[in-house]
């Protein structure tokens, strides 16, 4: 399979692993051990565990699994709101498959569907719009979630709904943005990360420039990377080169997809439809200012929040949950006392156990509880 198999070449992977070992033996890097590198994106976390990449890394390199799984950080009250919407008899709720298992305080969408709510998984917001066309006498709500990766798709779908005058289509919007969350982590005094592997798909949309503050103000290297095993290994090589030479720059490993300025058309659609909210809440991390978007007033007629009598209030997270320490690199998933016991993929207690891209769920799925 083109553009896939080339990046899964085991011989090349071993070669890169050996190269990393030689680099880590150099005195200028030996003194920095352990080098802690955070992969921001859940897709990267998934690749690392799926291919067992950590086994190829030399001693002295630690991967910290970051906050970039949009499903994991979905706060329970937003799921509760979706349940309230889906329970209205004239509503069809549509969303991505990943959102179906996320627990709210009254269970998941999957459980609500089993109780009879009309909830359908779609592969694209455009499929949700088609459901609206096919069911003119029902209100069709699309639960939109994700980082900048999925924002343009939602925006373009909404523009299309306006153009066609589809009045029974609504958006329940929980899109979030990557930069504020990175800034919040960097400002945390307990944060222990030396460099970042930047998110590939988000960067395809927003480009490279939004990360320059990490290199300039926080003096940490950033390498935007693709999602195949060799992409990740090569980006680690690039991170080590920066550390060795004392550079802090934003570099692009994923040149076959990401350009410096991102995708202008996509960004335009996003700017047309969405406006920053004052604050948004994140499972495991609390409220973060200007970290999520809602619909602009011009699109208010399509906002599913209008269909809610009152949005659910934020609930306190379980006190014994230590997701935020895992996210900051202070704790390995296995060191959490809940891991594999009170918190499992079937019954997640913390954010990182929710989706297979969360650090704890990936660790549990691919390395077991023991």
């Amino acid at each position, binding site marked *: 399979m083109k553009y896939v198999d080339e990046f899964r070449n085991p011989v090349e992977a071993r070669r890169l692993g050996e190269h990393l070992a030689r680099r880590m033996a150099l005195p200028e890097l030996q003194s920095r051990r352990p080098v802690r590198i955070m992969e921001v994106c859940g897709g990267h976390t998934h690749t690392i565990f799926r*291919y*067992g*990449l950590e086994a*190829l890394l030399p001693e002295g390199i630690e991967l910290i699994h970051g906050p970039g799984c949009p499903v994991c950080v979905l706060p329970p009250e937003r799921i509760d709101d979706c349940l309230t919407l889906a329970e209205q008899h004239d509503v069809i709720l549509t969303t991505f498959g990943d959102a179906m298992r996320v627990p709210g305080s009254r269970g998941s969408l999957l459980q609500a569907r089993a109780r009879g709510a009309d909830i359908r998984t779609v592969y694209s917001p455009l499929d949700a719009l088609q459901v609206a066309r096919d069911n003119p006498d029902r209100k069709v709500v699309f639960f939109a979630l994700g980082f900048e990766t999925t924002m343009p798709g939602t925006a373009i779908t909404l523009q299309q709904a306006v153009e066609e005058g589809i009045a029974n289509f609504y958006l329940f919007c929980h899109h979030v943005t990557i930069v504020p969350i990175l800034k919040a982590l960097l400002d945390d005094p307990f944060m222990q990360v030396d460099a970042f592997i930047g998110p590939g798909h988000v960067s395809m949309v927003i480009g490279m420039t939004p990360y320059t503050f990490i290199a300039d103000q926080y003096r940490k290297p950033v390498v935007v990377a693709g999602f195949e095993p060799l992409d990740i290994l090569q980006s680690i090589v690039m991170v080590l080169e920066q550390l060795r030479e004392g550079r802090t720059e934003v570099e692009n490993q994923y040149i076959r997809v990401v350009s410096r300025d991102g995708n202008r058309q996509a960004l335009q659609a996003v700017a047309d439809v969405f406006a920053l909210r004052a604050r948004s809440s994140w499972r495991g991390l609390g409220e973060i200012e200007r970290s999520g978007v809602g619909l602009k007033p011009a699109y208010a007629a399509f906002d599913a929040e209008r269909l809610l009598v009152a949005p659910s209030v934020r609930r306190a997270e379980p006190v014994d949950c230590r997701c935020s320490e895992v996210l900051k690199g202070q704790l390995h998933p296995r060191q959490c006392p809940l891991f594999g016991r009170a918190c499992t993929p079937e019954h997640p207690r913390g954010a990182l156990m929710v989706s297979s891209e969360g650090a704890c769920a990936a660790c549990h799925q691919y390395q077991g509880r023991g």
Partner: protein
Amino acid sequence: MVLGGLAMRRLIEEVFLATFDTPELASMEDQARLPLGDVIASGDRLAFTTDSYVIDPLEFPGGNIGALAVNGTVNDLAVGGASPLYLSCGFIIEEGLPLEQLRRIVEAMRDAAEQAEVRIVTGDTKVVPHGKGDKLFINTSGIGVIAPGVELAAHRCRPGDRVIVSGTVGDHGAAVLQAREDLALEGGLLSDCRSLSGLVRDMLSTGADIRAMRDATRGGVAAVVHEFSSASGRAIRLFEDRLPVRPEVRGVCEILGLDALHFANEGKLVAVVAAAQANWLVARMRQHPAGRDACVIGEVLPDVSVQVRLRTLMGGERLLDLPVGELLPRIC
């Protein structure tokens, strides 16, 4: 389609009896009467199994619910080492199902039964009002005979044994997903729905020490290998680079973030065999059309542990999990 005695009788005669055309059915008695002589001549134990078939959509590339209902039950008998002899079939039809579609499905059952050399000897039909069923449900039960000395059981797996799959993995699951969700992917995704009884007969005739066999339906190859590990108490290792997966099935997996090892198959079996006999058994399997892509994909480990490990393409090792409930695609 209407309810009512006369219409029902016509339905049975026109569609079912005309298509199946076996003397047991044609006699229209309340039960099939089966000569014991045939049974006793071919083995010393009966195998008896039942399964109900519900699938959306009813027809998919490479098969339909009828072919599935025959092959599924035939395969459940075959992987126990039994020669399938007789099937029953029960239909629950929702009012409004097009007669043409029902006919196509029943014809597929007839063809599948012919191919598997099994006879449909008794049946039942119910029509339920519109909204009280989902178009069509089929139940089939099957009787087969096991020859003396054939002992296939999952607990017999031993350290060092090899794990064999009879062909490409995940074809049925991917084809049904494509048909159901209209993924608009190009390339011919086809279900692998077929009988395994001929292949199993050939495998048994080699005299190889086959410890266990299962058909890899729901839950896929991953689920079967977990069953082997669980029953034998030994860890099992699979090798990612040896798994036969069609490029178009891989495409579906890549796009949706799913694993072909978790996809259902309807014409593939997984067998465990003594190491020394693995290669020639595979060579023999490849001579049968249902085993053309057979290969060794793993081994039983000495570790006393219920666990399936996967040696990844990259040379790392990880656990191969069982899917949690229904397979859901990932967004990024």
